[in-house]
């Protein structure tokens, strides 16, 4: 059975081992010889991480395991992830302004919002931020590959 209290620390141990392998392949420095090299700190941390995760596993095995668990990822969280990634991808292509308008509208429609006032507030917000950044702070917001 999938048990996150065992699985997660084990995964972190696996990551630490991969890190240790990567550390062993660091190139030799060419310009600065130092008594403690580039590999020292990461190695110490990776080993520490393995120890900590082992303790976590042992601690869990010894505990009474009766804690009720919240589900790790729900469908709503998945919606959140897709919204984030979709929005970021959209920005790279069509720029901030369009992506935000599309993203915000899609989000409200997904939640079956009927009130027009919500849509209007959302759009005003998007334009207000655009104005604030480009005119007041003079920070250029992403323009998107298709238009610039």
């Amino acid at each position, binding site marked *: 059975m999938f048990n996150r209290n065992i699985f997660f620390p084990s995964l972190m141990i696996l990551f630490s081992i991969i890190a240790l392998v990567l550390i062993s392949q660091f190139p030799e420095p*060419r*310009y*600065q010889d130092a008594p403690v090299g580039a590999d020292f700190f990461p190695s110490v941390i990776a080993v520490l991480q393995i120890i900590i995760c082992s303790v976590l596993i042992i601690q869990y095995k010894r505990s009474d395991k009766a804690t009720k668990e919240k589900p790790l990822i729900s469908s709503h969280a998945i919606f959140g992830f897709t919204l984030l990634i979709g929005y970021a991808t959209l920005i790279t292509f069509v720029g901030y302004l369009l992506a935000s308008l599309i993203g915000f509208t899609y989000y409200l429609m997904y939640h079956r919002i009927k009130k027009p006032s919500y849509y209007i507030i959302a759009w005003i917000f998007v334009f207000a931020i655009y104005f604030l950044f480009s005119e007041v702070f*003079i920070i*250029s917001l992403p323009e998107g*590959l*298709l238009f*610039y």
Partner: protein
Amino acid sequence: MKKLLKTAIISAGLIMSASSFAADYPSKNIRLIVPFGAGGGTDAVGRTLANSAKDVLGTSISVMNRTGGAGAVGMSFGAQQRPDGYTLTVVTREIASLPQMGLMQNTADDFKLIRMVNLDPAVILVPADSPFNTVNDLVAEAKKNPGKVKFASTAAPNFYLMALEQAQDIKLNAVPYNGASEAIPSVLGKHTQVTMVTPGEAIAQLRSGQLKALGVMSKERISYIPDVPTLIEQGMDVTTGTWRGIGAPKDTPDEIIEILGNAFDKAMASAQFKDFMAKGAMTIHPLKAQEFTGFVKQDEKTLSKFIK
């Protein structure tokens, strides 16, 4: 896939706009990429130059800081933008050194260099009460105790130091600090004995007398610190320093480079820019496109001697 699409879009854009390019340039805002953080020396020079050039060009220039990898990220980013003259990049000496060290994919050849802006020599600095009074004192000590004189290095590897070390066949103990703002306090606090920075970076400590300059690594003395002798005067033929300039992606049409070059000439001659540089103790060195390109080629050769 993304890269392919990007190339496709860029080339389509090129074909569409190539004919109508230069005639109405500039017709929209220009971006100037600064490969170092907001608030640093390169950023200040970039912003001030942008401020002066915008009046000449009649269009606004927005500065965009793109930091990382000692300038590599920003300069590579700038080299890969559309060659339409609307994205310019502040190029620094790192464009000559980083590619040779394998730390940057793009080189100076990926740019059409427009103008060099400033060229500043390195100054050798020690605390005011240091026993060293000339560069010869320093070299003598380093010869007596190789690898013992503690040097506060502003970057690793430090090409200022390497120039001196190689010319005089000495070795100092280089402790790497993150820029002049860390190296100077280290020397002031006597944790290290000597450092090398540009005059602008240490002008406050030089004026107040907290630091003593042993020598300046330029061909001639610098107007901001007229009492400091050059290394050549002290019998060592070593010059080194750092420089900045403006570049555009390599396929930018020559007419646009011409327009921009003229604009930057005027900007560099403007009272505001000259005043800013003088107050910051930086030396304007306005090389034209061709000379600048030759200069960078020469510097690449010089640096290759240190990078084995």
